[in-house]
């Protein structure tokens, strides 16, 4: 029954710290009075708002329309009134702002009409559209729209569907608790996803440090078709590429989708929300968030999307020495710039950090090329080489050595004896390269425009010259036609001067041409507008005549000698 497991190279084994937050069942977060729902919560464009300030909405009502087919819909997490649609700061490492729907809850939790769908009778295309319109995105943290991942790829068909319950990041336990408590929903969701891609088999990969989750899923899984596979606990076993490698032996390179290789991977939370969307008609409006770390009562809560984080933190009481909050886990999460930010679909964990729990790192030392990073790298890169390339801004070399294959899992920096913040160097190199690429695209476009204009001007010039040449040729022909009778007379050996007798005829023709030209010029002249004194009103002309007469008189007087002064 057990599938053969493959290994991925590298990886590390930090202390898991999962027990802290798995002692109590998933709690339900209280409904906050005001929710801030970001319109952009997945890759691929910002959905357009479908509501206006002041409008009343129902729970589950669509408030953001997916842009084309590349993003996912956004829904009202509860019933209430839209107060504003305005840019608000998002939970993002650099505190980006983006349009959000600010919703005042009415506390009534009035649902839209929920329409369950029998997935077995529905076409894959209809189900994909339904998932898109239900806002289903990857809940493992990347929030990639699921309907895109479910499209058949170059391999024609997805043979193996992988459900990712590995949850390899320390401290995070939202997937673990979901698997323990809602295994049946996950299995039903997996069946829907399998139906859409008509996969041969479904493998649920779970790290072997979650025996309860494994048991729960095994109990829920039907006898055939869905296989629960414990995988060795080693970070980042839950990385999509790593889990695919462990379960199937297939390696997906950077920039390619699993579908191209006949395999696709979804988080357990995603499978569960697909089940709710299709079989219960409930769009994705809440998720499970682990609240843990330096807090008094760590645990997992089901949170409506858009709930402010600081409100949630009150539930678990952060300890006094907490100095910051991390969204995500300690290996890949980022420090929240503030805590009054909303929970998004990507928010799997809020981790309270303290200097005791995550001590500040010792000063950075030079790289001694010890190779610890190389042994830890699950992408099988040479991290120390990328460190040198990134530092030296030798981006071409970094790209040649595969820097974009880096998944920023942090293993290299975790093991580095010189305390080098390696991932920061890679982020710098990658963003610099992307910026350069954008600049290059822009300058390429500008150059193309310039070249096109030059070409057009050249072409117009050429056309003009051709027209002129044609005209001249026609004129020459006319002249040549007049010349012809005379041209036959002189002997071939005669020089130009000796051909003078031909001139009279030539002159005749030329005269005709010149006369025609003069006629044209005269016609043109006649066409020219008269000057400002040529056609004046009669009274003006009279005035002018008067002035001229006065002047003549003055001139007459001036001609007579002046009288002797008395």
């Amino acid at each position: 029954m057990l599938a053969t497991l493959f290994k991925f190279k590298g990886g590390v084994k930090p202390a898991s710290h999962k027990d802290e937050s798995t002692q109590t069942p998933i709690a339900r977060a209280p409904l906050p009075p005001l929710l801030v729902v970001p319109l952009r919560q997945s890759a691929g464009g910002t959905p357009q708002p479908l509501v206006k300030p002041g409008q009343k909405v129902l729970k589950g009502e669509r408030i953001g329309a997916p842009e084309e087919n590349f993003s996912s819909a956004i829904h009202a997490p509860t019933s209430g009134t839209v107060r504003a649609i305005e840019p608000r700061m998002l939970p993002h490492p650099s505190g980006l702002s983006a349009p959000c729907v600010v919703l005042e809850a009415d506390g009534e939790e009035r649902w839209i009409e929920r329409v369950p769908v029998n997935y077995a009778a529905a076409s894959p295309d209809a189900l994909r559209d339904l998932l898109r319109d239900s806002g289903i995105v990857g809940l493992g943290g990347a929030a990639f729209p699921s309907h895109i991942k479910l499209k058949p790829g170059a391999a024609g068909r997805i043979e193996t569907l992988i459900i990712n319950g590995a949850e390899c990041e320390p401290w995070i336990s939202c997937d673990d608790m979901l698997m323990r408590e809602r295994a049946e929903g996950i299995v039903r969701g997996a069946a829907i996803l399998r139906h859409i891609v008509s996969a041969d088999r479904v493998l649920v990969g779970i790290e072997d440090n979650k025996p309860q989750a494994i048991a729960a899923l095994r109990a829920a899984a039907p006898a055939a078709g869905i296989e629960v596979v414990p995988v060795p606990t080693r970070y980042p076993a839950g990385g999509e590429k790593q889990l695919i490698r462990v379960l199937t032996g297939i390696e997906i390179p950077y920039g390619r989708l699993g579908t191209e290789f006949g395999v696709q991977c979804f988080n357990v939370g995603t499978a569960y929300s697909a089940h709710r969307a299709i079989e219960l008609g409930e769009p994705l409006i809440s998720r499970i968030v682990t609240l843990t770390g330096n807090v008094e009562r760590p645990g997992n809560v089901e949170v409506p999307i858009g709930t402010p984080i600081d409100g949630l933190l009150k539930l678990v009481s952060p300890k006094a020495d907490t100095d910051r909050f991390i969204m995500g886990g300690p290996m890949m999460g980022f420090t929240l710039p503030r805590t009054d930010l909303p929970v998004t679909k990507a928010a799997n964990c809020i981790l309270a950090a303290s200097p005791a729990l995550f001590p500040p790192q010792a000063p950075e030392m030079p790289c001694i090329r010890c190779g610890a990073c190389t042994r830890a790298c699950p992408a099988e890169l040479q991290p120390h080489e990328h460190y040198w390339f990134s530092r030296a801004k030798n981006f071409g070399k970094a790209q040649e050595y595969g820097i974009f294959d880096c998944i920023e899992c942090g293993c290299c920096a975790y093991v580095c004896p010189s305390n080098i913040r390696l991932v920061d160097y890679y982020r710098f190199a990658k963003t610099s390269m992307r910026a350069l690429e954008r600049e290059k695209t822009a300058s390429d476009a500008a150059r193309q425009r310039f070249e096109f204009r030059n070409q057009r001007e050249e072409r117009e010039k050429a056309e003009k010259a051709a027209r002129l040449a044609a005209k001249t040729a026609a004129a020459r022909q006319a002249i040549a036609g007049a010349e012809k009778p005379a041209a036959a007379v002189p002997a071939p050996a005669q020089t130009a001067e000796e051909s003078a007798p031909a001139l009279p005829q030539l002159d005749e023709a030329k005269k005709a041409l010149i006369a025609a030209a003069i006629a044209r010029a005269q016609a043109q002249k006649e066409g020219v507008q008269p000057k400002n004194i040529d056609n004046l009103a009669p009274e003006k002309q009279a005035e002018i005549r008067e002035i001229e007469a006065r002047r003549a008189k003055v001139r007459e007087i001036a001609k007579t000698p002046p009288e002797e002064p008395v």
Partner: protein
Amino acid sequence: MNGTSPHLHLPISVRLIMLKVLAALVPGIAVYVWFFGAAILVQIALASAAALAGEAAMLKLRGKPVGLFLADGSALVTAWLIALTFPPIAPWWLTVSATLFAIVVAKHLYGGLGQNPFNPAMVAFAVAIIAFPALMSQWPAVGFTDFAAQLGMIFKSQSPQDAVTMATPLDALRTQLHVPEARATVAGILGSHASFGNIGGKGWEWIALGYLAGGLWLLQQRIITWHVPAAFLATLALIATGFSLASPDRYAGPVFHVVTGGAMLGAFFILTDPVSGATTPRGKLIFAAGVALLVWIIRTFGAYPDGLAFGVLLMNLCVPLIDMGTQPPVFGHKDSKKERKP
């Protein structure tokens, strides 16, 4: 930038690595003292003091945090390796000046920790053996453990008596085999004197085993990988086996080569210097095999008693090329290695 991931870090440091390397040298040093007296401890102390002084001065000159870098232990590793490769009765000024040369020129003038293209300890050895070949060839005879006499040689440059010094087994073998009319054979020379010991020179063979023990511990601690020691010792043994099988009278066998001279120290402690060595797995194999080949050639045909220093330095030169040519394929790019190359 404490806000960026990862927020976790293993409790590991350059200092810890260097301290473990020093600890791994202790068994070999203990055996050294047992067979040749405490002189080696004096040399270690001299080299350490010189290394720390040179390091501190250079750090200050370069405007680097002195305390932080002095505590990393890298200068001590260089110092100990210099002391262990030099004759234990070498005059103090030779050890000190060679160590200073290693730290100041071979390390800091190239940019300090992590930047030196050449193994500093081997630079020191090469400079010393070229400048002072006689002093570098005076090795104590087994059983010469009179500490007062040793101190006299180190600090007062007293001329050693013939009774207390002798050529190392490697040196003896090479010089005697080079005299054709002597009609000496390897077996004859090695059997001629009790000081040749059982397999690689009395005393030296046991010190080599001490280094081996420490080296295996470093492997277990994952401070070093198997590639370099295995490739070095295997290549050396393979070449020695081939030649000694073809002509047993003229060429020493594999066991002798592996446990004599600096082979074992080199395999686990010198060639494994990460800064000046190759970093890719295949690169490490090529690097170590290259050193082994050079060592065997210099030992057998060269003018110097041992070839480790020159072998290492010559291969250090090749490291950038080796690393460039042995880049392993990246995850997902295994069957299309050329695809990555532009």
